[in-house]
C-alpha cells in the first residue's frame, strides 16, 4: 500500500498555509494540538490535587493554591477539553467526509471558531498566570462576585469568549448537516456519529448563550456592583445556580453525545454487524438532547429551591436515563452474532460501554431525592461525573482517535502498544475513581484540601490509580508520534469499514473526494 501523492497534509508546508487555512481537516488538526495542550495542563492540575490528597493534612500546597488547582482542573477540562473534544476535532474532520461534502458549510467561520477558542484559552491561561482563580468551575455566587480575591473576571471572560466558538461550530454543523449531504444520503441513512454531532450542535446553539449571559452578569456585579446575585443589594444568589445549570446540565450531554456517536461507529465496525435498532438510536439521541434541558434543578436538591421543584426535576432525571439505557442495550445487542475483533478502538469502545453504564446508573442513584441529601457535594458525585466525562467521553475520544488515525494521517500505529494503552486506561480509571464512590458514601465532601484521617486509605488508592491512568494517557503520545514519523501507510480502508470517509484516500485529498459519492443504502452495511 502506498500513500496518495497529493493530499491535504502536503498541500503547502508554510505556517501561513496552516494558520489561514479554511480546510476543515487542517482546522481539526489545529484543534487537536490546542486541546491536547489544554488536556495536559488540566491533567497536571489533577495530578497535583491527587498528590496533595495522599495525606489527611493539607501539607503539600496551601489551601488557596489547592483551591486554585481544582478550579483550574475543572475550568480547563470542561471548557477547553471536553466541550470541544470530539466535535471540534473528529467532528470537524469527519462530518464533511461522512456527509460526502467538500468542506463545512462555512469554512471561514470554522477558522474563526478556532481563533475565538484560542483567544478564550489565552484569557483563561492569563488568569492562571495572574494568580489563578479559586471559585471552582461552577463560579457560584455570591462567592465569585463578592468574596473571591482571585482573577474571576479574567477567567469568566475566557469562558465567555470560548462560548462563541461553541456556538459558531454548532451553527456550522447544523447547516452542513441540513444542506450538504451527498445524493441519496437521507436523514435515516446518516451515520450515528453525524446524528450525535447534530444533536450536540443544537444544544451548543441553544444553551451556550445562557451561560454567556450568566457570566456577563457575574462580571457586571463584580466590576460595577450591580445587585443581581448579591443579597446585600437585593439580589438572589440562587438565580445564578439556575442560570448556570440551565447551560451546564445540557452541557453534560455536549460532553457525552459525541462519544456515543464515536462508539456506535467503532462497535459496528469491529463486530461486523449493522447497529441494532438504528431508529431507536436516533430517537434516543434526540430525546437525550431534549430532556437534557429540563433536569438542571437536580443540582439544587439541597440548595433551598422549592420542594416541589425538586420532585419534578427528580422525575425528569429518572426519565432521561431511559434513552441512555436503550443505547447501551442496543450497543450490546449489536455484538450478537458478530465476528468481533479486539483492536484498540474496540477495547476503548467496550470500556466506554461499561464505564458509561456505571456513570449513568450512579446518576440515577443521585437523582433519588432522599439519597441525594446525603450524597450531594460528596466524592460520590465526583466519581459519578468522572465515570461519564472521563470513563465515557475521554475513552470515546481516544477510541475515535485510534479508529480514524489511519484516515487522518494515512499511517498505521503499533497494534500491541495501543492495546496496552487502552487496557491501562480502563484499569487505571477504575482504580482512581471507584474508591471515590466509597469515599462519598462515607461522607467525604468535595473540594476538601484537608480531611479526617479515616478517609486516607481510599484517597491513597485513588492517587495510585491515577498513576496507572497517566500511563494510559501518555503512551498514545509515544506511539502516535512514532506513527507520524515512521508509521506504515494505512491504505484507504484498513479496518474494512463502511461509511463515506473510508471511500476516499488516506489522508484524504484537499477537497475530500475526487467525485461526489452517492449513497444507496443504510449505514453499517456489514456482513
Amino acid at each position, binding site marked *: 500500500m502506498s500513500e496518495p501523492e497529493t493530499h491535504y497534509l502536503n498541500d503547502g508546508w508554510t505556517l501561513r498555509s496552516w494558520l489561514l487555512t479554511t480546510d476543515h481537516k487542517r482546522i481539526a488538526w489545529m484543534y487537536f494540538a490546542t486541546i491536547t495542550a489544554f488536556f495536559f495542563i488540566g491533567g497536571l492540575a489533577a495530578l497535583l490535587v491527587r498528590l496533595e490528597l495522599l495525606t489527611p493534612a493539607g501539607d503539600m500546597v496551601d489551601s488557596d493554591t489547592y483551591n486554585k488547582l481544582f478550579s483550574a482542573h475543572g475550568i480547563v477540562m470542561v471548557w477547553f477539553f471536553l466541550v470541544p473534544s470530539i466535535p471540534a476535532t473528529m467532528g470537524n474532520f469527519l462530518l464533511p467526509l461522512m456527509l460526502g461534502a467538500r468542506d463545512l458549510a462555512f469554512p471561514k467561520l470554522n477558522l474563526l471558531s478556532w481563533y475565538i477558542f484560542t483567544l478564550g484559552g489565552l484569557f483563561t491561561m492569563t488568569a492562571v498566570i495572574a494568580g489563578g482563580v479559586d471559585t471552582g468551575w461552577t463560579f457560584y455566587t455570591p462567592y465569585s462576585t463578592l468574596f473571591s480575591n482571585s482573577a474571576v473576571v479574567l477567567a469568566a471572560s475566557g469562558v465567555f469568549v470560548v462560548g462563541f466558538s461553541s456556538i459558531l461550530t454548532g451553527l456550522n454543523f447544523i447547516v452542513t448537516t441540513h444542506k450538504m449531504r451527498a445524493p441519496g444520503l437521507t436523514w435515516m441513512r446518516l451515520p450515528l456519529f453525524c446524528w450525535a454531532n447534530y444533536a450536540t450542535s443544537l444544544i451548543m446553539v441553544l444553551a451556550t448563550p445562557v451561560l454567556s449571559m450568566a457570566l456577563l452578569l457575574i462580571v457586571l456585579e463584580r466590576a460595577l456592583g450591580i445587585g443581581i446575585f448579591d443579597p446585600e443589594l437585593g439580589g438572589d444568589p440562587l438565580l445564578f445556580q439556575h442560570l448556570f445549570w440551565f447551560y451546564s446540565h445540557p452541557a453534560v450531554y455536549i460532553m457525552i453525545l459525541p462519544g456515543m456517536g464515536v462508539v456506535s461507529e467503532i462497535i459496528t465496525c469491529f463486530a461486523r454487524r449493522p447497529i441494532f435498532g438504528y431508529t431507536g438510536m436516533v430517537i434516543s439521541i434526540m430525546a437525550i438532547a431534549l430532556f437534557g434541558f429540563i433536569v438542571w434543578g437536580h443540582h439544587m436538591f439541597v440548595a433551598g429551591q422549592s420542594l416541589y421543584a425538586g420532585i419534578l426535576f427528580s422525575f425528569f432525571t429518572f426519565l432521561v436515563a431511559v434513552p441512555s439505557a436503550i443505547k447501551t442495550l442496543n450497543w450490546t445487542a449489536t455484538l450478537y452474532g458478530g465476528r468481533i475483533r479486539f483492536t484498540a478502538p474496540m477495547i476503548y469502545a467496550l470500556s466506554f460501554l461499561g464505564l458509561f453504564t456505571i456513570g449513568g446508573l450512579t446518576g440515577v442513584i443521585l437523582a433519588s431525592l432522599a439519597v441525594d441529601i446525603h450524597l450531594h*457535594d460528596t466524592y460520590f458525585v465526583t466519581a459519578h461525573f468522572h465515570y461519564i466525562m472521563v470513563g465515557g467521553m475521554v475513552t470515546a475520544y481516544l477510541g475515535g482517535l485510534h479508529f480514524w488515525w489511519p484516515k487522518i494521517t494515512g499511517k498505521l500505529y503499533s497494534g500491541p502498544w495501543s492495546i496496552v494503552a487502552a487496557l491501562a486506561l480502563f484499569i487505571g480509571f477504575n482504580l482512581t475513581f471507584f474508591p471515590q464512590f466509597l469515599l462519598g458514601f462515607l461522607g467525604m465532601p468535595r473540594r476538601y484540601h484537608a480531611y479526617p484521617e479515616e478517609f486516607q486509605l481510599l484517597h491513597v488508592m485513588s492517587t495510585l490509580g491515577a498513576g496507572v491512568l497517566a500511563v494510559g494517557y501518555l503512551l498514545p503520545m509515544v506511539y502516535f508520534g512514532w506513527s507520524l514519523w515512521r508509521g506504515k501507510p494505512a491504505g484507504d480502508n484498513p479496518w474494512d469499514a463502511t461509511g463515506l470517509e473510508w471511500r476516499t484516500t488516506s489522508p484524504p485529498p484537499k477537497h475530500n473526494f475526487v467525485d461526489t459519492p452517492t449513497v444507496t443504502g443504510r449505514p453499517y452495511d456489514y456482513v
Partner: protein
Amino acid sequence: MADQYLDTVEKGLALHPAQASTSAAQVDALFWVLVAVCAALVLTLVGLVIWFSVRYRAGSDRPRPGGIPDKLGHRIELGGAAGLTIAFIALFAWAGSLYLYLYRDPGGDLLTINVIAKQWMWKLQHPNGAREINTLHVPTGQRVRLRITSQDVIHSLYIPAFRLKRDAVPRLYTTAWFEATEPGEYHLFCAEYCGTDHSRMRGKVVVMTPQDYADWAQENGEGESPARAGERLFTAYGCSGCHRGDGTVRAPRLDGIAGRPVVLASGGTVIADGAYLRDSILLPQKHVVAGYEPVMPSYQGQIGEDEILQIVTYLQSLSPGDWITESGG
C-alpha cells in the same frame, strides 16, 4: 460530663458511615436497594458483553445467527424501555416520598437551634440561649429543628451520620430536622465550597441522652433565649415604635404576620417567610405593604446577622393577637 462522649468519635477505616438518626436507616435502605438494582443491570450488561465477545470472537467458527429480526428487535427495545421506566418510576416514588418526609419541616414546637454559617465557622444558639461554635450538642429521642442561614457566602451544613445536608444561603432561612438515636460524636462538615478554609470549616455533633443534654443546657444556658433577645432588640432598634401599639397607622402590625400572605402596594402578594422579614429590615423599599407609605429606613450595616435572626425568631414565635392579649385589650 460531656467528656464521656469523646471516645466514641469515628476513627479508623469505616466501610459504612455511622447511623445516628432515625432517618439514617431509612435513607440507607433506599440506597442499598438502588445499588442492588444498578449492580444487577451492570452485571447483566457486562455478562452479555463478555458472553458475546467470547462466543462471537472473530476466531471462533461457531455458526452465526442471521441477526435479530426487526420485529423482535423492536419488542426488545420497547420492552426494555417500558420495564426500565416502570422500575424508575417506582424508585422515584420511593425516593420522592422519603424526601418529602425528611425535607419538609414537620411543624410544631420543636427544639429549635439557630445556625449561622460564616467563613469559616458554624455559630449555633440553643432555645435557652446557650451558644456554641463548631460543636452542636443535641439530645436523643427528640426532634430537633435547625434554622439555618449564612452571613456571607453559601455554605452547606452536612452531618453524614444523620444523612442530613442543607445549604446555608445568605438571605434565606432554611430549616432541617432530625431525631438523633445514638449518643456519641459525629462529623459536622461544610459541604458547599466557600473559599480558603472550606475544608477546615468542620466541627462535631455531640449526641447526648436527654438527661445529659438537659444538664449541659442548664450549665451553658446563660442569657436570654433567641426569641426573648429578639423581643428586646425589637424595642431597642425602635421597631416597636411604629409596628406595635398606637404607631400602627404608619406601619403594619407584626404579631402573627410570620408565615401569612401579605398584600403589597405593588399589587402582588408574598408569604412573610424568614427571607421576607429579613428583606423588610434591610431593604424596606423592596416590598412595601399595601396601604402604607414607604417611610421605613434601612437597617443595613447597623444590625448583625445574629440579631436579625433573633428578631425573625421572635416574630415567628408570635401568634395573631398576641399583642392585644398582653396589653389587656
